[in-house]
């Protein structure tokens, strides 16, 4: 919730926020979404545009610790806020445990929803480091996967905190 009322526009106005730990200054119109700011202004194309109307979750990013649909978030409402995108997770060169778990559990097929799914799970794990399957289901219930990799996504969400980075999945039954 904004703590004070600010008026901007009608034309482009200056905006200042942090994206993946770096300051970002931009002059954008009031209707610019956070998604378009990230993709077009910041050049961070890992966040995907699918429906652009808040119905699929592919554009999920983390704003001040919370997973949000960036297509439904106006850029100017993020003044001074800290945004994390999929690109931030492996900035050190190491995969984030959630990313590792997605690969090991084969929690993706075409991969187009994957950045959004991963960000939803990352936000969950920060709030609840040892989630149940149902916690993961709730966390990604707003993230569509048309390839139907949901079983793997839930498994990855549960396995992520138990998994040391780099470890490959055990062999086993194909039922996951």
């Amino acid at each position, binding site marked *: 919730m904004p703590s004070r009322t600010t008026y901007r526009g009608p034309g482009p106005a200056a905006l200042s926020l942090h994206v993946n730990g770096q300051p970002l200054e931009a002059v954008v*119109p009031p209707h610019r979404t956070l998604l*378009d700011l990230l993709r077009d202004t910041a*050049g*961070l*194309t*890992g*966040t*995907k*545009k*699918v*429906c*652009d*109307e808040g*119905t*699929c979750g*592919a554009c999920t990013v983390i704003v001040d610790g919370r997973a949000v649909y960036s297509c439904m978030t106006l850029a100017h409402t993020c003044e001074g806020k800290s945004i994390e*995108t*999929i*690109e931030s*997770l*492996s900035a050190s060169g190491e*995969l984030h445990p959630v*990313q590792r778990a*997605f*690969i*090991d559990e*084969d929690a*993706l*097929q*075409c*991969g*187009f*929803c*994957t*950045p959004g799914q*991963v960000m939803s799970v990352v936000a969950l794990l920060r709030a609840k480091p040892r989630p149940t399957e149902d916690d993961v*289901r709730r966390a*990604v*219930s707003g*993230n*569509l*996967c*048309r*390839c*139907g*990799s*949901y*079983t*793997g*996504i*839930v498994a990855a969400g549960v396995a992520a905190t138990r998994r040391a980075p780099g470890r*490959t*999945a055990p*062999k086993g039954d*194909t*039922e*996951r």
Partner: protein
Amino acid sequence: MSPRVVRTRVEFEGEINDELSIIDGRDLPAWRGALDVVGARTPRVDGVARVTGRARYTQDVVLPGMLHARFLRSPYARARVLKVDASRALAIPGVHDVIHRTNAPKAAFRGEETIFRDEVRFAGDEVAAVAAVSDEALRDALRALVVEYEVLPHVADLEEALRDDAPRLEEKGNVSDSGKQDRGDVRKALAQCEHVLEATYRTSTQLHNCLESHSAVAHWDGDRLTVWESTQHVFGVREGLRAALRLPLSRIRVLCEHMGGGFGSKGGVGKYTIAASILAMRTGRPVRFVLDREEENLAAGNRSATLQKVRIGLRRGRIHAILHSSWSNAGQGRWVADPTGPTNSLYDLPDLKTRSYRVVTNAGSLSAFRAPGYVEGTFALESAIEELADRAGIDPLQLRLRHLAKKDPLSGYAYSDKRLRECYEIGAREIGWKARKRGGAPGSTPDRRRGIGMASQIWGGGGGPPAYATVHLNPDGTVVARCGSQDIGTGTRTVLAQICAQELGVDVDAVRVELGDTDSPYGPTSAGSLTVASVGPAMRAAAADARAQLLGTAAGILEVTAKELRVERGHIVSKGTRTPIKEIFDQLQNYTVIGKGSRFPNPERIAIKTFGAQFAQVEVDLGTGEIFVEHIVAVHDIGRVVNPLTAASQVQGGIVQALGFALTEERVVDRGTGRVLNADLEAYKVPTVRDVPRITVRFLDTPDRRANSTGAKGLGEPPMIPTAAAVANAVANATGVPMRATPMTPARVLAALGAR
């Protein structure tokens, strides 16, 4: 050996075609014995790119000076375009170009001479395309275009289009023949039956909703056109652009490194591809053309709604005759995904008559959608068989076993391999089929009933030529393997890396697979469940060729005969000594090894098919009509499983998509206007994580050594085929009422229960 031309039978989406194919050399014998790379659970080789957001999809391609483009689409289901006035649109700052029917260059597209018709034929048909510097300018320009239409009478609904008083959309009428089979004398046979079931089945239009919408980025540098496209077939797009733009193939390059789902809808060039290319050539700037979600659901293909009538008769405990007629809403499409395919080919049925009709309407064209026709047809066939068996007091699985075809009913050829009986046995055990009772079982609350049902699956998946690959060995022992195929999310890149690594004798990590580029050797469309069985053998042959070249060279350097050498995990092994490949190259400087491989023809007079069976357990709330799918058991026979990890994902995904078809997905069109009312992901219900039941996946994993040199067949489509029928049969078992329409929404379930 010089190349030679052979004729071979290739099955593609239920159609069998004779194809000429050029082959070079001799095919490899099928793999024998244990393999260590092929068959191992292998994480996706492009997994890191996809989980980090680094994978670049078409919508992520940004080029300097790039313009954005969109279509103006018809709001009318049928109208004559009298006039397009672009003057106000062109006056908007940032708008670079507008093309429409009077100023666009001729561009052949699907049998027509232009991408902008004089008569628009569905709500969403393309009227004009605009290119502008920003999305804002683009939207302003679309609003500023003035179009005069003469609205014509339309019909968008399948069953309305069948009526005599419906507007006649084509000269010969709205209905045309598109397939028939006759075996024996059905009329006579039906008259002899003790039980005859007559039933009408309806399936709704399903929308693909690939998360990455159809999109293209076109770049014309004055000499060559480069197009990034989200496609299942880069070579198909290149051919479509050649036909539309009349450019030589050497001046067109199509690229698709990663793509976000196709499911059949991205089989070739789109109007947006052609428009992007024309606009790029006219403006001299790169053009990005990305359909939005609504357009995706209006004009990017769908699975046809069907009306199917089945008459099936039983005599002395056997299916004695079947009559299956189907009408498909093709929209403006020129073909039909034939729902009678499974009826014609799944069982040994002596007396059979099937008819398939295409119905043209003022709706968006169909396109292939994961097992086109077979999903719809299996729903009708397998529902009818189970209902008939129950009526006669025969176990439905036993009835199916009585008609297990020993040879392909269509060609009369023997199967390369068939393990459907084992699929039945495993599935029946996993679901507890023995406990199935007519009339189902009590559910978890007094309002609920529980039931189980099953359905069988047949599909092609044998693949065939042409498909080619090259394997380039680098001086450090790493490998670049190339083929102009695509990875549409199925795991092609990983499977090809495994096949290459296995044959060459290196680790999977050493192989980089480059796909999706028409400057590579030809790869077929990523459709029809044909990739692994088509490109896999070509890749294996290329790796074998590279290995032979490497060993010949290594033999010279190590001063032994090539026969004494083998390649193992990146080393040349000879009687106890292991020399890294790199060391051989170090002595030869920039010596280059390029292995070349092609897909050899399919064996003659052999039918190559995939089989499977799925079993469903459901609970049904008799008060609300809700169906709760509790468990799906899927057992599929696809020959050798190259990667159990990605194969299981494909089965899971096929079932989830099929559950959408079975339970929730339905395009709704307003009959009065012909407009789609749910062209979005809010009102059109694709399954979410909450809709996924427990799914048990089993493979027989027995190499089909007669099919091709890898023993592997396709898997993309099979898992989608039987799910809806299995669920419908489980619901019928639970409630005692047949379910004859998809999606089986609570409203339809309640209506069926009420009609009892």
